[in-house]
C-alpha cells in the first residue's frame, strides 16, 4: 500500500513538475544592467536643454539667461545659442518665434562699418564675426546674404601671414588654432568653399593647422619634427593650454589636448581633406588613445563644454561612430559623451562648468555647447 502511495505521489509530482517545465523557467537573477544610451536618450536631454534656453529668453531685453551677465549682449554668445537652436532636431528658424527673430535683429545691428559683427567697444572680432556668420547662415534666409558677405570680407582680413586667424584685424598677438577653427566654421557655413578664390585661402589655413598638430609626416615646421607623433593638436605651433611635455629624446614640446585636437580634426575636414588623409588619421589615432567623455583630455574640467561640442562636430564630420582603443575595445563616442552630458545636466535642463575658464561659468554658453553636442550624439546614434 505504501509503495503504491509513494508511486502515486511520484507520478503526481513528476506530472506537476513536468507541466511546470512546459512553462518558461524563471529568469536568472542578474545584476541591474545600465540602460544603454540611445538616440532617444540624447533627444530627451537635448529637448530639456533647448527648453531651458527658450524659457531663459527675455523677448523685451533680447537676452538669454541672466541679463546682467557680461556675456548677455555679446554677439558671439548669442550667435552660439541661435546656431545651436537652428541645428537642433527642431530646426528652429525665424518663423518659430521671438527667440530667433529678436537675436537676429540684434546681431544685424551689431555689424560695424568694417563689416565685423562686434560690440562697439571692440574685442574678439574673429569669434564674434565668425559665430554670427555661422548663426545667420544656419537660418537660411537670403535677405542676409549681403551682410554675411560683408562680414566674411572682414573675417578674411583676420587671417595673418602664417595662415592662421588671430583675435581680430590688427591684433598683435599672433594667430591660434581656436580662432582659426571658429573662423573656418563661419567661412564654410556661409558657403565660402564654393567661391573660386577660396582655394588659396584654404591652402594657407591648412598649412597653419598642420603646424599645430603633433604629426611629423605633415607638420611643416622645424619644431613640428620634435614631438612624439601622437596626432594631437595644440593652441599654436609652440603653445599649449595643457603645458609642455618632455619627449623621449629630451625635447620640450607643447602637450596636445582634447579641445585643440578636435579643432584641428574638424578644421582638416572643413579645408577639404578626406577621411583617409594622414592628418585626419593621425588626429583619430590621438582620440583612440585619449578620448574622454568626462573631461577635456590632458586639461581636465576647463573648457569641457567647448571640447564636447568640438569633438562631436569633428568626429561626426570625419564619419566616425566608434573609436577602436589600443586594447581592442570599441569606444562608442556618441553614447559615452551623450550619457555623461545627460548625467551632469541640471534638473532645469541647463549646464554649467565647475571651472569658470573661457566663459564656462555661464550656463548660456555651456548649455548651447551641450545642446550642439547632444544633437550630434543623437544623429550619430540613430
Amino acid at each position, binding site marked *: 500500500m505504501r509503495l503504491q*502511495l509513494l508511486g*502515486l*505521489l511520484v507520478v*503526481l*509530482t513528476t*506530472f*506537476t513538475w513536468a*507541466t*511546470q517545465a512546459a*512553462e518558461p523557467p524563471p529568469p536568472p537573477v542578474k545584476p541591474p544592467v545600465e540602460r544603454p544610451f540611445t538616440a532617444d536618450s540624447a533627444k530627451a536631454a537635448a529637448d*530639456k536643454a*533647448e*527648453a531651458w534656453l*527658450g*524659457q531663459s529668453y527675455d*523677448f*523685451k531685453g533680447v537676452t538669454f539667461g541672466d541679463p546682467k551677465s557680461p556675456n548677455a549682449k555679446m554677439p558671439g554668445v548669442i550667435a552660439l545659442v541661435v546656431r545651436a537652436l537652428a541645428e537642433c532636431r*527642431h530646426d*528652429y*528658424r*525665424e*518663423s*518659430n*518665434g*521671438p*527667440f530667433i*527673430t*529678436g537675436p537676429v535683429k540684434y546681431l544685424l545691428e551689431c555689424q560695424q562699418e568694417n563689416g565685423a559683427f562686434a560690440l562697439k567697444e571692440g574685442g574678439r572680432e574673429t569669434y564674434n564675426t565668425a559665430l554670427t556668420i555661422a548663426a545667420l547662415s544656419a537660418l537660411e534666409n537670403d535677405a542676409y546674404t549681403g551682410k554675411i558677405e560683408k562680414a566674411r570680407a572682414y573675417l578674411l582680413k583676420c587671417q595673418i601671414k602664417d595662415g592662421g586667424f588671430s583675435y581680430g584685424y590688427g591684433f598683435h598677438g599672433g594667430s591660434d588654432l581656436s580662432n582659426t577653427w571658429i573662423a573656418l566654421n563661419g567661412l564654410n557655413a556661409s558657403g565660402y568653399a564654393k567661391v573660386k578664390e577660396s582655394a588659396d585661402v584654404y591652402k594657407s589655413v591648412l598649412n597653419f593647422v598642420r603646424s599645430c598638430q603633433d604629426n611629423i609626416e605633415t607638420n611643416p615646421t622645424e619644431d613640428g619634427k620634435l614631438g612624439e607623433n601622437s596626432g594631437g593638436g595644440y593652441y599654436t605651433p609652440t603653445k599649449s593650454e595643457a603645458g609642455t611635455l618632455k619627449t623621449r629624446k629630451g625635447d620640450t614640446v607643447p602637450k596636445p589636448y582634447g579641445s585643440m585636437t578636435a579643432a584641428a580634426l574638424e578644421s582638416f575636414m572643413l579645408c577639404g581633406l578626406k577621411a583617409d588623409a594622414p592628418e585626419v588619421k593621425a588626429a583619430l589615432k590621438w582620440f583612440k588613445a585619449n578620448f574622454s567623455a568626462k573631461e577635456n583630455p590632458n586639461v581636465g574640467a576647463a573648457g569641457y563644454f567647448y571640447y564636447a561640442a568640438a569633438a562631436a562636430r569633428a568626429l561626426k564630420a570625419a564619419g566616425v561612430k566608434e573609436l577602436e582603443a589600443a586594447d581592442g575595445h570599441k569606444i562608442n563616442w556618441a553614447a559615452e559623451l551623450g550619457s555623461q552630458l545627460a548625467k551632469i545636466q541640471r*534638473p532645469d535642463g541647463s549646464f554649467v562648468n565647475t571651472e569658470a575658464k573661457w566663459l564656462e561659468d555661464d550656463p548660456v554658453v555651456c548649455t548651447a555647447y551641450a545642446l550642439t553636442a547632444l544633437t550630434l550624439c543623437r544623429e550619430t546614434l540613430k
Partner: protein
Amino acid sequence: MSYRLPLILAVMLLATATLYAAEPPPPVPAKGDVKAQTLEAIKKAQKFLIDNANEDGTFGKGFAHGVPGVVALATYGLASGPAKLTADKAPALAKAAEYLVGKQDAKGAIWIPKFQNANYNTSTAVMALKALNDPKYNEVLDKAKEFILNCQLDEKAGYEKDVHIRSYGGFAYAMSLQANLSNTIFAMDALKDLGLKEDSPAFKNALTFVRRCQDNLETNDSPEMKFGDNAGGFVYLPGESEHDTFKTRAGKEAPVPYGNMSFQGLRALLYCGLGKDSPEVKAAMKYIRANYDVKNQPGLPDASKGQGYFYYTVALARCLSVYGESELDLGGGKKAAWGNDLGGYLATIQKADGSFVNPVDRWQENDPILCTSYALIALNLAYENIK
C-alpha cells in the same frame, strides 16, 4: 493516516489545475446588440480602473502611474458617459481629485516637473476636475486656467501673427518653444470647459494656428504648407508631421496629414465657431470621409502602424460627437454609423480583465491604465452615438 493521501492528492491536483489556468475566452458579441456590448465594455473598463486604484489616488503600478495626466484621463473617463461614477459613490475618484489638486504649483500648473508636459497634464486635470462638478475645485481651476493661457504663444509672449508663422496662436508643452496641434486642442478642451468661447482672444488666436496646420491651400497661408495634396487633413504644426513626409502627386516632399491631428484639428475649428459649410470644415470632413476607419489610423506609414491608436479613438469620438452626426455619409451610398462601428470594435479588442493596451508602445500606449482610460472615453461617446 488515511486522510492524508486525499489531502495530498487534492493539493497536487489543485496545483496542477492552477498551472493550467488560462484566461477565459472573451465573450462572443451577440449580433445586433452593439449598444449592450458597448455598455458592457464600459462597465468592464471601469471595473479594471477601479480595481487598480491606489490609496494615493493614482492608478496601476506602471512606471508613469504618478503622472497627473494619466490620473486625470482615468478620472475623466470614469466620471463621464452612460454609467458615470461620482466622487461620493466611488472613493477612488475623490482620492484621484485630491491627488491632482495636490500637484498644482505656484504658477497654476498641475504636473510633476520630472515628467514634464505641463500643459497636457494641467489641461487633462482641468477636464477631470470639471467632470466631478464640485465647486470646491473652483480656485484650483482658476489658477490652472491662468497657467494654460500662459502656454499660448501670442503677443504677450512676444509672438507676432505674421512673422512667427510656425507658432503663433498655438499652445506649447509648457511656457516654451514649440507649439503643436495636440497641445493646442488639449488646452482648448480645458479652456472650453472653463467657459471660454469662440469669441475669446485665445480661441481667435488659436484659429490662426489651427488653419496653418491644415493641408488646405485655400485657407492656409503658411509657406511650409504649400506642397501638400490638398487632402484636407491636418499635421502636427505648420510644416511638420509626427509621421514625417511623403511624396505628393506633384513629386514634392510634404508633411503627412494623419488621423489623430485631422480629428483634433476639425474639432478645434468647430470650437472656434467655424460652420459646417466653411471651407476648412468641408475640407476636413472630405479627408475624414475618404479615410474613415475605426480600426486603423489613416495616414501612417507601414512602419508606424498602430502608433497612437487609443489616442486616435478619443480624437475620432470627441470630434464626431462635437460635429454632431451619428451617421456619416461616405458617398456612393455608403453610410457609417461611427458609434456602432467604434463601440463594436473596441468591445472585441478588450481584454478579459476589462483593460486595453497597444502592442505598439509609442507615446506610452504600452500602459494599460492609459489605454483603458482612452478607450473608456471613446466608448462613452460611441455609446451616445449608437443608432
